[in-house]
């Protein structure tokens, strides 16, 4: 039976959404089911459109970059880092080495916290409350570290153009605290992952459900750990100059089912701890920021960073007074969710929800306007976008 034939059979729709324990963020999922099996699925990710890119048009750059942090409350550091990085690349500002190290430490801590939220959330959707709570216990340890460095639990505001903020410098006290608290964390996370993998009840649920093959993953440009769990060997961290000095493995798994997506993140946590430990050991001394730059007109500058969920793309231009022009941001969940739309077909409804959660959706950053023409969704061509930009959006 071909895919199209199967899709025609659906007669019943189960709409899930805006407010649901398994999704947390408001999005609308419409599952077309045949009794209990999902035949087709449509996700609408736009309830959440806030128009952040538009707010930032014409804002002073340092002020505007603070808003980039508020794009997402889980991966806030990455957004700010990427925005700053785009400006630094465009203006050719040299960032001190120490600042880069601290940025990396923050990013990896954030990856830990984000992946632990994912593990907890996946277990919650699975119905396994105990494992969910255990993951949250681990997460609170990471939150403490983030709090020690930055002074806030979520929006850390660590990077600034040219370096990092002075309050986030890692001094001796923070160094010893980080060392102490990190020493057991990877063992704890390893134990947790072991328990999840060896639990046959959990495995019977996640094994073989929500399969996303490598071909599909490439077709839908599945980013980050979700793609790596389907066998795409891409990790932007391997290409970034900030990560060049660190030794870590890229976790690539082959099955592409829910189990792999859970396990990939658990293993990535351990790699992150490895990176943080290396960074703390070889933390270079020196200045933490170089603020001797001049804001001047900057042509279109772009930056790609590997966020916890995949790659983030930021691009912006500056005018002569240092105001932001045409800020653009593309986040990983958009394509990750799109590929989950395919992955959940053929599973039970309960497994379908798990598949949705297993790409670690974080929609705060994702929402886009949808163009509907003649009853069909449409993507703008490059020319149209350019003409829109010329008209000032």
């Amino acid at each position, binding site marked *: 039976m071909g895919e199209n034939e199967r899709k025609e059979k659906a007669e019943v729709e189960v709409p899930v959404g805006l407010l649901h324990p398994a999704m947390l*963020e408001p999005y609308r999922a419409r599952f077309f089911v045949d009794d209990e099996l999902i035949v087709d699925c449509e996700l609408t990710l736009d309830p959440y459109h806030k128009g952040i890119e538009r*707010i930032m*048009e014409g804002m002073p750059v340092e002020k505007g970059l603070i808003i980039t942090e508020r794009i997402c409350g889980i991966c806030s550091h990455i957004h700010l880092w990427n925005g700053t990085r785009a400006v630094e690349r465009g203006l050719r500002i040299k960032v001190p080495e120490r600042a880069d190290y601290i940025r990396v430490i923050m990013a990896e801590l954030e990856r830990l916290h984000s992946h632990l939220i994912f593990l907890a959330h996946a277990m919650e959707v699975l119905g396994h409350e105990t494992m969910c709570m255990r993951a949250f*216990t681990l997460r609170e340890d990471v939150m403490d570290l983030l709090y020690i460095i930055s002074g806030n*639990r979520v929006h850390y505001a660590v990077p600034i153009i040219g370096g990092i903020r002075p309050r986030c410098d890692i001094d001796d006290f923070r160094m010893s605290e980080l060392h102490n608290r990190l020493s057991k964390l990877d063992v704890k996370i390893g134990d947790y992952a072991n328990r999840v993998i060896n639990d046959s009840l959990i495995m019977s649920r996640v094994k073989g459900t929500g399969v996303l093959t490598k071909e599909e993953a490439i077709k839908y440009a599945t980013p980050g750990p979700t793609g790596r769990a389907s066998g795409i060997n891409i990790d932007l961290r391997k290409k970034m100059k900030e990560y060049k000095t660190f030794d870590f493995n890229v976790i690539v798994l082959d099955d592409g089912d829910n189990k792999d997506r859970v396990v990939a993140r658990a293993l990535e946590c351990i790699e992150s701890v490895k990176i943080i430990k290396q960074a703390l050991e070889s933390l270079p001394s020196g200045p933490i920021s170089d603020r001797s730059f001049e804001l001047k007109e900057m042509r279109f500058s772009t930056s790609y960073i590997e966020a916890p969920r995949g790659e983030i793309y930021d691009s912006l231009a500056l005018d002569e007074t240092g105001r932001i022009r045409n800020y653009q941001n593309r986040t990983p969940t958009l394509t990750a969710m799109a590929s989950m739309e395919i992955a959940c077909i053929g599973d039970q409804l309960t497994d379908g929800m798990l598949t949705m959660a297993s790409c670690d959706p974080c929609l705060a950053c994702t929402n886009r306007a949808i163009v509907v023409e003649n009853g069909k969704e449409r993507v703008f061509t490059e020319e149209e976008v350019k003409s829109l930009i010329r008209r000032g959006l």
Partner: protein
Amino acid sequence: MFKKISRKNAIHVMLFYTGGCNGCDIEVANAAWSPRYDLEQYKVILTWNPREADVLAVTGPVLRRTIEPLKKIYEAIPEPKIVAAVGSCGVRCGIFKDFGGELGDSDEVLCRVDEVIPVDAYIPGCPARPEDIIAGIAAGIPLLLER
């Protein structure tokens, strides 16, 4: 008498997420009920059903697409009920209305929570810390007992 004691002893909190940045959302739904803070020991229970709830915690500013659901969900909660606006965005739209560039602030972000439904407890912070959330809910309890 029993009315007050029973209300004090079982409080169901429901989270509605009108569109912040995930920060407050995770602090409310997850951190405050995680083993570290464990709101359940203070007899506060998380629920996802408006028919069961006493306290509606709203995180985030009200967006164009979430204003109608917010009203409906508020109506669905039986009296007595209190509403807690969590985070700077819930309290006064936070960063999305406070400043904007040349095109002004966002059109999609419509208004504060208290312009749509009456709010009893304001829990500021970006994001609100779990301690603040616990304190905020505790501050709302006397209101719940009076009604």
